């Protein structure tokens, strides 16, 4: 990790510590803490981390952006930082200066599609768009015929249905029928809906890895403090072994997500070369981190006993987002079916060479 990475990580950590402390947020009567957090993120340039300098962004490395998301995940961040990063990345790729404010991206699901008609208007309904109801703008990977285009629309022009994910964060069905984008640009060669899907999956993997780190830390601290049968429960071997397993899941998540981030950076630097190796990296991250999210959340709750599943305790801020994020940009099963089909089509003898190539 270079020094500049540390500065980015440190800045992100400081802002979230100051303005998104999980206990403070959990105790808050309303959402009034949200705007100061967003303003601080915006002022520091973190919201446009993946937007080039020329377009008013921070222009950091792809991996640095994923580090920002890992840190935001470690605070169970309930603001659309990942979505705004992705939107900024899409717009920056076609030379469009992003608007200020919260953004999100569409589509999120592999089977949803937005079409740009000859009249210049969009059509299509996309499901489960994270934070669409909070966003000022939506960056869209749409299709004009078969050609992928990147479009920007004002969220207020779209029909946004109410909806919440399991964490209680906005997740909305959005209908674009008849909406004329303020900007439309053809996507660069090699960049299409799959690219956005992969970047989104890697973003969620990084966020989940961060949330799992915190779930481990909270659980270990609780096990050290909570006394039962005359000693801290962390002194019981059964509890220690459970938490060791949680440590393994955290480790696997850290490795898989950072590897995918590194792979995507390479793919983008090579000029949007999303080959089988990159697919393996992203699929593996989303699958393995998603598995860790399920297993890790269960262990963290078991360690906490009853207090862990109360509203007043902060653990639910992390576990509910782990459960939510594992579904976004393709769940484990969806990615696994695709990865398995690819491996099978390649044939048995190509499996090891593919693995060893990473």
């Amino acid at each position, binding site marked *: 990790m270079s020094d500049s990475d540390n500065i980015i990580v440190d800045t992100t950590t400081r802002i979230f510590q100051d303005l998104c402390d999980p206990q403070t947020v959990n105790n808050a009567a309303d959402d009034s803490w949200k705007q100061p957090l967003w303003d601080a993120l915006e002022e520091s340039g973190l919201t446009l981390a993946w937007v080039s300098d020329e377009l008013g962004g921070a222009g950091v490395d792809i991996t640095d952006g994923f580090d920002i998301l890992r840190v935001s995940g470690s605070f169970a961040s309930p603001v659309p930082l990942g979505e705004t990063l992705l939107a900024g990345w899409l717009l920056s790729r076609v030379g469009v200066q992003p608007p200020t404010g919260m953004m999100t991206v569409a589509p999120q699901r592999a089977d949803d599609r937005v079409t740009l008609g000859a009249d210049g208007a969009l059509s299509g309904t996309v499901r489960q768009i994270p934070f669409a109801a909070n966003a000022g703008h939506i960056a869209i990977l749409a299709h004009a015929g078969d050609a992928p285009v990147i479009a920007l629309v004002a969220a207020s022009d779209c029909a946004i249905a109410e909806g919440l994910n399991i964490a209680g964060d906005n997740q909305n069905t959005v209908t674009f029928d008849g909406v004329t984008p303020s900007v439309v640009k053809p996507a660069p060669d090699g960049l299409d809906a799959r690219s956005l899907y992969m970047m989104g999956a890697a973003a969620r993997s990084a966020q989940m890895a961060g949330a799992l780190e915190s779930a481990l830390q909270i659980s270990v601290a609780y096990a050290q403090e909570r006394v039962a049968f005359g000693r801290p429960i962390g002194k019981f071997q059964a509890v220690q072994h459970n938490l*060791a397993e949680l440590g393994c899941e955290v480790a696997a998540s850290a490795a898989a997500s950072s590897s995918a981030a590194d792979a995507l950076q390479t793919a983008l630097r090579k000029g949007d070369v999303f080959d089988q190796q990159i697919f393996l990296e992203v699929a*593996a991250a989303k699958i393995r981190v998603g598995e860790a999210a399920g297993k890790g959340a269960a262990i963290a709750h078991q360690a906490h006993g009853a207090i862990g599943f109360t509203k007043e305790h902060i653990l639910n801020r992390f576990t509910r987002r782990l459960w939510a994020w594992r579904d976004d940009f393709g769940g484990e099963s969806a990615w696994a*079916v695709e990865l398995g089909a690819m491996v099978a089509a390649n044939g048995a003898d190509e499996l090891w060479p593919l693995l060893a190539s990473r």
Partner: protein
Amino acid sequence: MSTAIQFDPIRLPSEAEALRKEVRAFLQDEIAAGTFDPNAVAASGFNREFSRKVGAKGWIGLTWPKKFGGQERSFLERYVVTEEFRVANAPVRGHFTADRQSGPTIMKYAQDHIKDDVLPRIIRGECSFCIGMSEPNSGSDLFAASTRATKTDGGWLINGTKIWTSGAHNSDYMIGLFRTSPSTKENRRHGLTQFLVKMGQPGITVNPVVQMTGIHEFNEVVFENLFIADDHVFGEIDMAWKQATSELAYERSGPERFLETFYVLPELVRVLGNKPDTRGAEGIGRLVAQLHTMRRMSVSVNGMLQAGKEPTLQGSLVKNLGTLWEQSLPSKARDLAAFSEADPGNRATFEELLQFATMIAPKLTIQGGTTEVLRGIIARGLDLR
């Protein structure tokens, strides 16, 4: 809010990939020449002629200092050699233990004339090692070892029994852990000393312990008044516990810690065919994702070690996850293949490999540190102990 369990996304350097090509070509030639059969997973794995050829290639002691005959190449290059040999099911028992563990211990603790004598022979693939740690009443609890080394004129007399000693029947030497003093109240790990034992002498009896697979890998090694000269002591008397070990992270995190049943996976892919159903595809996809992640963790630990870091906790995490994964692979493959209708020829190879893997699976989370011990080490790393 961040607990630092970091895994740098380290990639293998280009020289390692060049070496991989050489290793693959060598293995293909050896398979073509009939030296070993990559599907004969039940074969003993000891083949001195093969080890000599590997030695001649310079692939034993690859990372060792040049003054001992090594090549001072990186641990990431060694990594590639290890994983390619493992995936090909090459017979590495004649040199693997010496290369991974015994050689580094000798370099650190042996007297110069022993280094000069033994290390070049290891590098040539002519000198195999076993590890004498476990005893009938001392397995995971290493420091309960009771095989005695009693001081005598010019050396030590060894009496007692080691067990589960892999490859003792094919080994030229053992590095043995023997009791030279009782443990103390303050330190129950006190009192054990490491010795270099030349095998095949009077005073040593090696009895086979055959596993349920029918394989003879383990042994019971009985010592009766075996004399070991003073210059064969490694490190300080009574202080073996201090000598364990900077090599531990390498030992725990290598590709052999998750690839031991790998052969099942390509055969599963073959049995399910080019277009598996949704269930089969998902099953393969998850296994491949898990394996890829394991490997990325393992490469990362080796890369961090190469860079001079000490990822001790990461090493234990990798071994725990890796051994559990390679252990679960056969049963997952069995489930996924339950309805396959691939041609009977393919299915036969799969069945054969699966049977063997199912029978070796239990040992994978026991050998070299049980899951329970590893979880304890991880818990200590998390400040729970």
